[in-house]
């Protein structure tokens, strides 16, 4: 399998007044199609790692490579292009737009690729079908349950068939049963094209993934591959 994304000796230090090194000399290579759980206590650098992998933040030093591209040398516009075409995000707070239908929320995942509305909606309908929400296309997010909302957010992240899907505590706002459904869905989405990275506190989520990376105090202290 080829490498989808890699961190090479990456350090992220936030400036004063809250000067802190959130991630220190992290080196990591995630293979295409892998499902990865990143765990660790609060403040261990999980979210910083996700932001760096997703090019939402730039490293203080070191290098991030995504889809063969050295992200640290790209302009803001080029990084945006990278996110539009290669990365999908799922957030704990869902971040759905209440004034849009479920279908249009998912279609928004392709908005910044410059596709026409018809193509976006057609892809969105397919993605919603994939997450089991084919019957909810015209609903508004506020009419859905928490689990359904997270499925919509997952569909939005998947709609462009990204190289990398990053999920930040996707079960954090859900009850355990619904959370288990979401984990099962995410684990089942892995294919030979999309690498799935999930940040979680939940050991159950970590167990469902192919690989388990553990962080503590900004350092990678564990990197385990599940036995095939």
């Amino acid at each position: 399998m080829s490498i989808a994304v890699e961190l090479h000796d990456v350090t992220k230090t936030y400036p004063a007044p809250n000067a802190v090194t959130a991630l220190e000399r992290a080196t990591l290579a995630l293979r295409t199609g892998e499902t990865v759980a990143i765990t660790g206590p609060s403040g261990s650098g999980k979210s910083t790692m996700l932001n760096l992998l997703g090019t939402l933040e730039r490293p203080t030093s070191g290098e991030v490579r995504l889809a063969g591209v050295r992200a640290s040398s790209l302009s803001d516009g080029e990084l945006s292009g990278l996110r539009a075409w290669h990365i999908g995000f799922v957030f704990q707070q869902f971040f759905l737009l209440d004034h849009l239908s479920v279908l249009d929320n998912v279609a928004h995942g392709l908005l910044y690729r410059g596709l026409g509305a018809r193509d976006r909606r057609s892809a969105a309908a397919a993605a919603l079908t994939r997450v089991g929400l084919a019957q909810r296309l015209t609903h508004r997010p506020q009419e859905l349950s928490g689990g359904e909302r997270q499925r919509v957010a997952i569909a939005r992240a998947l709609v462009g068939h990204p190289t990398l899907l990053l999920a930040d505590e996707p079960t954090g706002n859900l009850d355990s049963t619904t959370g288990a459904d979401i984990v099962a869905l995410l684990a089942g989405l892995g294919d030979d094209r999309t690498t799935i990275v999930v940040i979680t506190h939940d050991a159950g989520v970590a167990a469902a993934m192919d690989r388990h990376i553990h962080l503590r105090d900004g350092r990678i202290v564990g990197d385990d591959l599940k036995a095939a």
Partner: protein
Amino acid sequence: MTRNPTTPAGRRSRVRLADALGVGAAGLRARRMRSTLSAFGIAISISALVAVLGIADSSKADLLAQLGAEGNLLTVAAGQTFDGSPTPLPATAESMIRQIPPVLMATAVGTVPGATVRRSAAVPALDTGGISVLAAEPSLPSGLGITMLHGHFLDAIGDRYPETVLGFAAARNLGIDVLTPSTQVYLDGMYVAVVGIMAPAAVAPELDTAALVSFPVADTLLHLDGRATRIYVRVDPDNVAAVAAVLPFTASPAQPEAVEVRRPSDILVARIAAKTAFVGLFLALGAIGLLVGGVGIANIMVISVLERRGEIGLRRALGARARHIAVQFFIESALLSTAGGLLGVGLGVLATAIVARVTGTPATMPVEVPVGGFAAAMAVGALAGLYPAIRAARLAPADALRTP
């Protein structure tokens, strides 16, 4: 810094114009009440500006129309005596003036000295109400373009029997607003039938406060001796100045320096100038209102940026460039001001039409006014949206996503 040569070619982040507009409009629809009120703030200012300019223009058009109609009117008078009453012109003045080729028409009035008009003999003699008694020729209303509000002007009967026509203000002062066959006033010691009331005369305000009788009646009953004190002269519009120059010598060859020649339309010019001065004041007030409306939009947009940090972070995560975020908020501001501008122009035009109809002036609206009003709204919206748009674009994606 060297650029990474492996940057995926053609895989840039971009958004279609129609989608950018759609996203902006959807953002406003999501906050319908707030958007409506913001647009309404702009609309009120723009409608005030458009209405002020429109109403002023309509009123000015009316005055200009009068000016066009009255610009060739001259008056000839012979000054005043020590007690303020008009001096009579020479008896030959009117016939001589008619001899000047560019003179189209001349009609005279003669002030009857000391004559008073009261509602009845019971009203004290000193209570004259400022009404003067003038002898007039039958050609006066047609010559000056004065219409009759009630009744008719002095005719052949008026030459033989004492009857009077009242000016607009004189009739109001005497409390006469309806004419019946028995309507009379007490004119210089006798009861005289009122046969007509004139509409206001913009260029001859002295007629508004007068009771008019015919020259024969004024001569026989009021001892005027046929002497005119003022002659109204209509002149070929191309020769007004030339005629004005020779009028003193023609009217009174013996004492030309005692003759006053005036152009009554100068009053209208002064009124236009006065209205223009007020328009400037109202425009300044309207501009302040527009500024306040713009600050309102800027305020709403800044609040919107603060409230929508999560959405901004999401859009950056979905691939929006900083410039896409700026354009989105800028479009929202521009749409608000566009809606406000359109509504304001509509309301302003409507107000102008209503006022013109109520006041009886012609409704005019120079095309620059609605176009300028709309452009002003757009400019204010653009300025108001600039700062919030830049602020939204500068939000770091990861910071925006940390929204609680």
